[in-house]
């Protein structure tokens, strides 16, 4: 009861502060309306205008949330450049239709792409890979930034349930983080009644190892945790290298209406994992195996995990560029807490604990914090610049607070439209942030764009952070739903523009239309096919109903942007092949008849003519099939 009233007082005080600030700054200034005509508009226009033919300075990789994609934009123009399909079939690039990508997606046709993480070397982006987690189906994916394609999907990862606190990477991409947002009985598919939530349900935090050469991901280890809801994470760096942090809500271990039941305690936790100790525990055999994964029970391996009390229902936990401060934001309060890694390590050494949760020591809050920064209402997530400032998004207040690390002084605030979730600054979560730009990823956008009906896009606002005062300079809109983004200096990426013939290792690739051929063995038909302006070779295929058809389709072009598509009507197939790429299309020709296939990706003046027919002879053999020919390919009545 005392807690409850304290919260009410806090919220009340927060609201009052906001009200006073509003009055002080004047009504208009608090509302992110239009820029003042004249100087501000001109300045913003010049700052964001990228002239035709010119290129942007930064890449912005947005997560697409439940659309399952990753979006790529340029900064400062904020122009959407491309969409990278990750967890969802995407006919635009043929993703999910050819054998490789279809098998990678497995049984899922959607995912919830949340937190993109660029690979790092010594705490800075190295431009090799982009990782992204799937909050829904417990997967992580790796996008190769050489060709901007999803190259691996790992998962469903055993034991992890609701992989939200992911895919943050350690400073040399040794690991990316995974965590359960929705605790369940383990292993997955085990059953326990909801009444046993507090004891029989388990949370998990863990790590996926990344091969430093190939980027290949594999589950490294997991830690059995109390059934809290693990939310967001970040890996330590510099002073805190070797640690990984996750916030959690629902320290109450409550079920039911969590909005109420999980918000009763004054504080939740940040789980601090010493991952070097976790590695050691696994090496020395202290882990048990659950569903094929090495799982550490903290009771068996002291020194692996600690709990840091944090203001209630925290969302973001963000490590400062030097690794010294761990910034935890309790989204129901008006403060963000700066923990000090030295103090944390000191408390660990001196066992300055106030209790434990299932054997996991709880560090004394007062002993590990450096400051509570009065940033404003609903702090969620923090980014950094190159001048020692931190930027915290304020969901409830629809604003961003700029404050100084060390002095803890809030120096500026800017309203955003509206209800900001995450924010991302230029390389703002690395050891060396670039400053200059920050993008506010807002949940609501109403009234800021031409109306498109009730399904509103999200708004992403570009803010210039190079000066003392933050300046809003651009509004952009994205499809649902960016949860986080990464902004990397464009010069760090060197993507290829065609797949060089020499690099194509597909054993079924062919490079000359003369090599195109059809091979039959039994009811299996294998076709080596070429696509080049403006024809497919072979340009018609005859198979029997029930045949297993495999088409190895090579785009034999070696010219930038000469992309071809292979759309097969009625068979629900659309594969897109980039220059120099080979993809495998396989299906059972179960429907008899004549089916056109054609180039779906506009290629040339004779693109329309780039077409052919799949002729599927009905069961019944030659008679029926000659009827097919007799009617000139119109097999409508031959069934």
């Amino acid at each position, binding site marked *: 009861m005392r807690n409850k009233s304290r919260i009410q007082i806090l919220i009340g005080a927060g609201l009052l502060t906001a009200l006073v600030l509003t009055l002080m700054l004047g009504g208009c200034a608090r509302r992110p309306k239009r820029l003042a005509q004249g100087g501000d508009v001109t300045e913003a226009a010049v700052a964001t205008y990228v002239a035709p033919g010119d290129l942007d300075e930064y890449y912005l990789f947005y997560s697409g949330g439940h659309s399952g994609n990753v979006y790529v934009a340029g900064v400062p123009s904020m122009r959407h450049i491309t969409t990278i399909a990750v967890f969802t079939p995407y006919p635009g690039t043929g993703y999910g239709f050819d054998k490789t990508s279809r098998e990678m997606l497995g049984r899922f046709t959607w995912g919830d792409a949340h937190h993109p993480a660029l690979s790092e070397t010594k705490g800075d982006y190295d431009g090799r890979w982009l990782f992204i987690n799937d909050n829904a189906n417990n997967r992580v994916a790796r996008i190769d930034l050489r060709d901007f394609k999803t190259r691996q999907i790992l998962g469903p990862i055993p034991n992890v349930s609701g992989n939200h606190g992911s895919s943050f990477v350690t400073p040399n991409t040794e690991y990316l983080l995974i965590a359960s947002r929705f605790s369940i009985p383990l292993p997955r598919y085990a059953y326990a009644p909801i009444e046993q939530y507090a004891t029989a349900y388990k949370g998990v935090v863990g790590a996926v190892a990344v091969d430093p050469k190939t980027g290949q991901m594999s589950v490294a280890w997991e830690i059995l945790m109390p059934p809290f809801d693990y939310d967001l994470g970040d890996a330590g760096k510099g002073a805190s290298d070797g640690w990984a942090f996750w916030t959690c809500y629902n320290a109450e271990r409550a079920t039911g209406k969590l909005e109420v039941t999980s918000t009763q305690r004054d504080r939740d936790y940040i789980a601090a994992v010493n991952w070097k100790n976790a590695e050691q525990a696994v090496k020395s055999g202290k882990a048990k195996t659950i569903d094929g994964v090495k799982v550490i029970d903290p009771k068996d391996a002291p020194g692996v995990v600690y709990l840091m009390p944090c203001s209630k229902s925290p969302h973001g936990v963000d490590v400062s560029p030097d690794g010294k401060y761990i910034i935890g934001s309790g989204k129901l309060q008006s403060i963000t807490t700066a923990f000090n890694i030295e103090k944390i390590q000191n408390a660990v050494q001196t066992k300055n604990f106030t209790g434990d949760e299932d054997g996991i020591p709880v560090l004394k809050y007062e002993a590990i914090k450096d400051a509570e920064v009065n940033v404003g209402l609903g702090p969620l997530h923090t980014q950094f610049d190159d001048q020692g400032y931190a930027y915290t998004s304020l969901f409830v207040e629809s604003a961003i607070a700029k404050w100084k690390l060390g002095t803890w002084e809030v120096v500026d605030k800017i309203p955003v439209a509206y209800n900001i979730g995450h924010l991302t600054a230029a390389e703002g979560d690395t050891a060396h942030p670039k400053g200059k730009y920050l993008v506010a990823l807002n949940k609501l956008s109403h009234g800021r764009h031409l109306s498109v009906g009730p399904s509103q896009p999200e708004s992403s606002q570009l803010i210039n952070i190079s000066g003392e005062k933050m300046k809003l300079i651009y509004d952009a809109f994205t499809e649902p739903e960016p949860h986080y983004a990464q902004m990397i200096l464009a010069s760090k990426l060197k993507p*290829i*523009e*065609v*797949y*060089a*013939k020499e690099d194509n290792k597909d054993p079924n690739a062919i490079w000359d239309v003369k090599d195109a051929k059809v091979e039959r063995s039994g009811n299996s038909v294998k076709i080596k096919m070429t696509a*080049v*302006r*403006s024809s497919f070779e072979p340009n018609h295929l005859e198979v029997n109903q029930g045949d297993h058809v495999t088409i190895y389709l090579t785009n034999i*072009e*070696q*010219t*930038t942007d000469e992309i071809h598509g292979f759309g097969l009507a009625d068979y629900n197939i659309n594969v897109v092949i980039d220059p*120099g790429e080979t993809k495998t299309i396989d299906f059972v020709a179960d429907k008899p008849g004549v089916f056109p296939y054609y180039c779906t990706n506009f290629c040339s*003046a*004779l693109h329309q003519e780039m077409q052919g027919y799949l002729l599927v002879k009905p069961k019944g053999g030659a008679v029926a099939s000659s009827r097919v020919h007799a009617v000139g390919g119109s097999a409508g009545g031959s069934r």
Partner: protein
Amino acid sequence: MSTTPAAAQPVGLEGKLKRANVFFELPVSLRSRLIAVVAALLLIPSFLFPLYELTLYSNQFPDGLNLYIYSYSLAGGHPQGRDDLREINTLNHYIGMRPLLESDFSEFKWIPLVVGLFFILALRAAVVGKMANLVDLSVMFLYFGLFSLWSFYHRLNEYGHNLDPMAAVKVPPFTPPLFGEKQLANFTVYSYPGVASFLLIAFFLLLALAVWMSRKPRVAQ
């Protein structure tokens, strides 16, 4: 009717030939020999550079598609992994032009051989030191150069005139430019001799210089 006392000096055609004999028998100076050696050495780097360069500009290819003709091969530009030779062939198929295939050019076999021979002959001329060798070499090389140029022109003409009548796009037969600029459909084509050609020209000019510098009989010491 000569009034000169040179009865020993025949006149007319015979006289000219005689004087030519004398000229061809002239020994060449050390300087001319050295120039012939330098000329020979210039032939070596000619293999490193293209003889001819064609660049095709269009709106889609503001950086131009490049085709390089070496004395021994045909090569396309490769900006950002693009294969320009493949692209030129792909585009040309629309007008029914035969693909440019290295194997179709016998020149790539005999030109390197001939250049090698000129290298040897230039060294020979330097060692033997007779005007006749230098002149032979210069004349043969001039012929080789003009023949190659004609052959190249003929090739271009052949490619531009033997168009497949079944081609999707019918264009009147044409000859790509041998030297300079020409508009072909949406492409502006530039065709210029490459560094190797200039090396070959330099070879010839040096030989001519060697001849010039030894044109007068030297006074015996």
